[in-house]
């Protein structure tokens, strides 16, 4: 077994390095099962051949076509230079709408570029449009492609033991229990023979969920090399071109019905999602967005025709805010554009359309249950924090000088702990539903409290909060709890849903930890009652002179954790048979209280908790350079009961930086023939300390009735800054006849809009049909 996560020189023999570049005979795998999500896919998209190395056609720039194994990365690079690949170029398809014309087909075996299509219709849409006082038409909106680009690239060490076909992985995959379900089938080994271990992970944001194709190549290379450990360290350019990007989405022919007060009564629209060359985690994104179907708004009638297509770009992965942020951005654009067309201020428009605090728990038109929230209150706090009236006055003054200042509001949801039953909406045969997480809590032989969870933390502080929860149950200090870090299949605390994704640790992870700790406490009580010759309700958990202990109140006698562990583990002759079932080693599986959604009606509760965020930004567009600059920024958060305030605040800041980066700086750009032009950080320009504004933070707590602690998952942030900055730019430029059509805006796009008049022209994009 190799040592973990360290450099080659510490090993008894150098670890060969794998350079993924191009096709090799060594790992020809075209007879193996696919790597795409078969269980979530139905024909024709399940026919796609998706292998870790391209077989005869490479479908996007950066797609691995061969693998080289060498003693060092530099030798592997030398070897890669010797590979000459002859490519015959095919007609590239880089836009999802164009892809749907099926003129150039990516996957011949699928016969079309359409991955999935479905209509989500609720209420009476046609009637709402007939009765509307206003109908607003928006021709096109577009959510751009970006990635949250964890700072640590993908890394895999694989060792395929030829003696027992046991595969060991030390890697940074962030959803290992999902990855092994593909890998076992693909590598044709028993799933129990794959051990995956993760340690500290240098960020994932969902992007590291889909690095299993590379994991497969490493295992096959190890097998080929007779079982030597193979290490693959992705380069940044490989990461940018061929790990995963977030989903790109185009919204066409949107029609919005409103009553005379500007209350939205119906929305009809056509959404086209671009999943890149291979639908790997997809087409789950075709339904995940409907967790937040109406966003934070009250409208009951809607028809969304949703289609997903493949294009010659990097496959997408579930990037932070996955599939929901695209939809929430769309809804915020709709609200702002309608408000402007009808002449209602942006804040007032929201207050008229928000779901009201007294309506929670609120059932959405598609059957999701929003647990709790108070959006008007968040707006009030955010307005106070930013100094709304002051900025409005200042804006009016500066506008007179010709300065382009905008104030924007973005309200968003961070839906957490999803019901995997929604996969059946995209594929009725999918064998998934519900959600679960495992944890183990034990007194080890010497009485240490040890906790293991099936999550896969990357800096979200799982170790801290898990220790807090166990400490609370046992009434001891968190410092006395040892939390096993990282993920390990051999700890036997994972379920098929274990990992870290979809804003859920506070609910699924901590519920599992809480359940395991309760189970342990129950056993400790039974044992202590026997030893101390008293009743269980006479016992108290505390810390005494000999460390943490259980004390009998009636007699004052106590036994410490060492004593309890000693009896069960190495002194068991003192135990009567009826206590033999006590192990002080308690595994607990938490299961979310979900039902299988109605596949035909596309109806059911898809997520357990709904954290919300409300941001306000003041943005100025420079009149000379058109560089957009944030002048002021506030973020108000509601994630129910807060378990650890600095951790929550840290997640809010982090998600805010991702959103601001995505809105203004970070864009995956492809040229007309499919070359990725932003394949290094120098071109992609992740947000830095110089362009990240100071964020003023506020919060409210509306405890969730759906989690034991009242907490809600909140790791993704709902991409609030993207909505907020689009809204602020819109406000700054409305009077110039500009509609912010795209989620990505930099000096170039704003210049082309305002001066060039090439894009974003309101008269071409938006029409108002006034019937009052």
């Amino acid at each position: 077994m190799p040592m973990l996560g360290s450099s080659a020189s510490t090993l008894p023999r150098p670890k060969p390095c794998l350079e993924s570049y191009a096709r090799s005979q060594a790992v020809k795998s075209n007879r193996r099962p696919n790597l795409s999500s078969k269980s979530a896919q139905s024909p024709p998209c399940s026919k796609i051949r998706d292998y870790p190395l391209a077989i005869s056609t490479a479908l996007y720039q950066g797609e691995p076509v061969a693998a080289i194994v060498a003693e060092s990365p530099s030798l592997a690079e030398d070897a890669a230079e010797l590979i000459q690949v002859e490519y015959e170029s095919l007609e590239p398809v880089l836009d999802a709408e164009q892809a749907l014309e099926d003129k150039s087909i990516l996957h011949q075996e699928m016969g079309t570029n359409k991955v999935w299509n479905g209509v989500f219709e609720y209420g009476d849409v046609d009637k709402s449009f007939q009765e509307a006082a206003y109908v607003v038409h928006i021709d096109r909106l577009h959510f751009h492609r970006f990635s949250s680009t964890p700072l640590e690239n993908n890394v895999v060490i694989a060792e395929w033991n030829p003696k027992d076909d046991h595969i060991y992985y030390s890697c940074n995959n962030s959803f290992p229990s999902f990855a092994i379900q593909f890998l076992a089938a693909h590598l044709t080994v028993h799933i129990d023979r794959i051990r995956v271990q993760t340690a500290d992970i240098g960020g994932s944001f969902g992007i590291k969920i889909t690095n299993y194709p590379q994991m497969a190549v490493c295992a096959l290379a190890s097998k080929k090399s007779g079982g030597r450990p193979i290490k693959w360290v992705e380069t940044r350019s490989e990461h940018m071109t061929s790990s995963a990007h977030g989903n790109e989405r185009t919204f066409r022919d949107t029609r919005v019905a409103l009553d005379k007060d500007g209350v939205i009564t119906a929305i009809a629209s056509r959404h086209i999602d671009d999943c890149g060359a291979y639908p790997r985690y997809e087409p789950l994104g075709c339904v995940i967005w409907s967790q937040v179907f109406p966003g934070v708004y009250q409208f009951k009638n809607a028809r969304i025709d949703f289609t997903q297509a493949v294009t010659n770009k990097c496959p997408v992965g579930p990037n932070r805010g996955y599939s929901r942020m695209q939809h929430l951005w769309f809804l915020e654009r709709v609200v702002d554009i309608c408000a402007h067309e009808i002449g209602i201020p942006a804040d007032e428009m929201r207050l008229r359309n928000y779901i009201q605090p007294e309506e929670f728990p609120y059932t959405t038109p598609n059957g999701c249950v929003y647990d709790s929230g108070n959006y008007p209150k968040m707006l009030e706090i955010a307005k106070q924090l930013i100094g709304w009236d002051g900025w409005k006055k200042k804006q009016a003054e500066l506008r007179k000088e010709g300065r382009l200042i905008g104030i924007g509001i973005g309200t968003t949801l961070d839906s957490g702990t999803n019901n995997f039953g929604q996969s059946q909406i995209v594929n009725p045969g999918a064998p998934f539903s519900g959600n679960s997480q495992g944890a183990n809590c034990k007194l080890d032989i010497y009485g240490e409290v040890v906790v293991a969870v099936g999550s896969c933390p990357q800096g979200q502080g799982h170790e801290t909060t898990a220790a807090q929860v166990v400490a609370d149950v046992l009434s001891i200090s968190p410092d006395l709890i040892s939390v096993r870090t990282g993920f390990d299949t051999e700890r036997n605390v994972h379920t098929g849903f274990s990992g870290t994704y979809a804003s859920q640790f506070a609910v699924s992870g901590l519920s599992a930890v809480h359940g395991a700790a309760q189970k342990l406490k129950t056993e400790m009580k039974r044992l202590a009652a026997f030893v101390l010759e008293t009743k269980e309700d006479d016992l108290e958990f505390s810390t005494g002179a000999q460390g943490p202990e259980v004390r009998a109140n009636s007699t004052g006698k106590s036994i410490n954790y060492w004593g309890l562990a000693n009896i069960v583990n190495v002194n068991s002759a003192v135990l009567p048979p009826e206590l033999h079932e006590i192990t002080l080693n308690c595994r607990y599986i938490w299961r979310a209280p979900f039902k299988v959604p109605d596949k035909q009606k596309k109806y059911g509760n898809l997520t357990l908790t709904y954290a919300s965020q409300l941001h306000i930004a003041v943005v100025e567009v420079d009149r000379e350079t058109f560089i957009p600059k944030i002048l002021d920024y506030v973020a108000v958060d509601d994630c129910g009961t807060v378990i650890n305030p600095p951790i929550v605040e840290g997640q809010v800041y982090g998600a805010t930086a991702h959103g601001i980066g995505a809105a203004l700086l970070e864009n995956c750009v492809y040229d007309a023939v499919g070359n990725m032009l932003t394949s290094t950080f120098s071109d992609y320009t992740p947000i830095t300390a110089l362009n990240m504004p100071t964020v003023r933070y506020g919060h409210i707590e509306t405890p969730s009735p759906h989690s034991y602690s009242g907490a809600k998952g909140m790791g993704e942030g709902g991409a609030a800054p993207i909505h907020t900055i689009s809204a602020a730019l819109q406000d700054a430029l409305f009077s110039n006849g500009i509609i912010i059509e795209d989620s990505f805006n930099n000096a170039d796009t704003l210049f082309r809009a305002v001066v060039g008049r090439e894009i974003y022209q309101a008269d071409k994009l938006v029409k108002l049909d006034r019937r009052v």
Partner: protein
Amino acid sequence: MAIKFGGEFEVKWKPEEVYDFLTDPKKFAPLLPDFQGMSEQDPTHFTVKVKVGISYIKGVAEVKMELTQADRPKRAQYKGSGSVAGGNVSLTAGFDLSPVANGTKVAWQGEAQIFGRLTSVAGGLLEPLGKKNVQKLIDGLQAAMK
């Protein structure tokens, strides 16, 4: 990314002579900038090796060429494709010949498609560099046909 180029020049040779020169790779290939060598597979297929370098990315490109149109003495067209560290290139280049008072007018046009890592690392440099090299080739042709 695509680089398009084109232009025209006049030489004193007759169209037939120009045509024969342009369709004989042994004659014109050595005029390619940084020519390293060539091999001929058959009268319409040959492979040339040229040295290419942009900033720190340096290497030898092997380009397979095919004479795809041969209409003596009016038009010749080549198609080619090849690879170099960090990228691939495919190109077409055509020559239309017409007689003029004291010689031949050569109208030429071409397009090169460049793929791969090379474009994102050195994208901005490729177009001027490509144009410079094409100009060198044309200058060489003109000089050879004087």
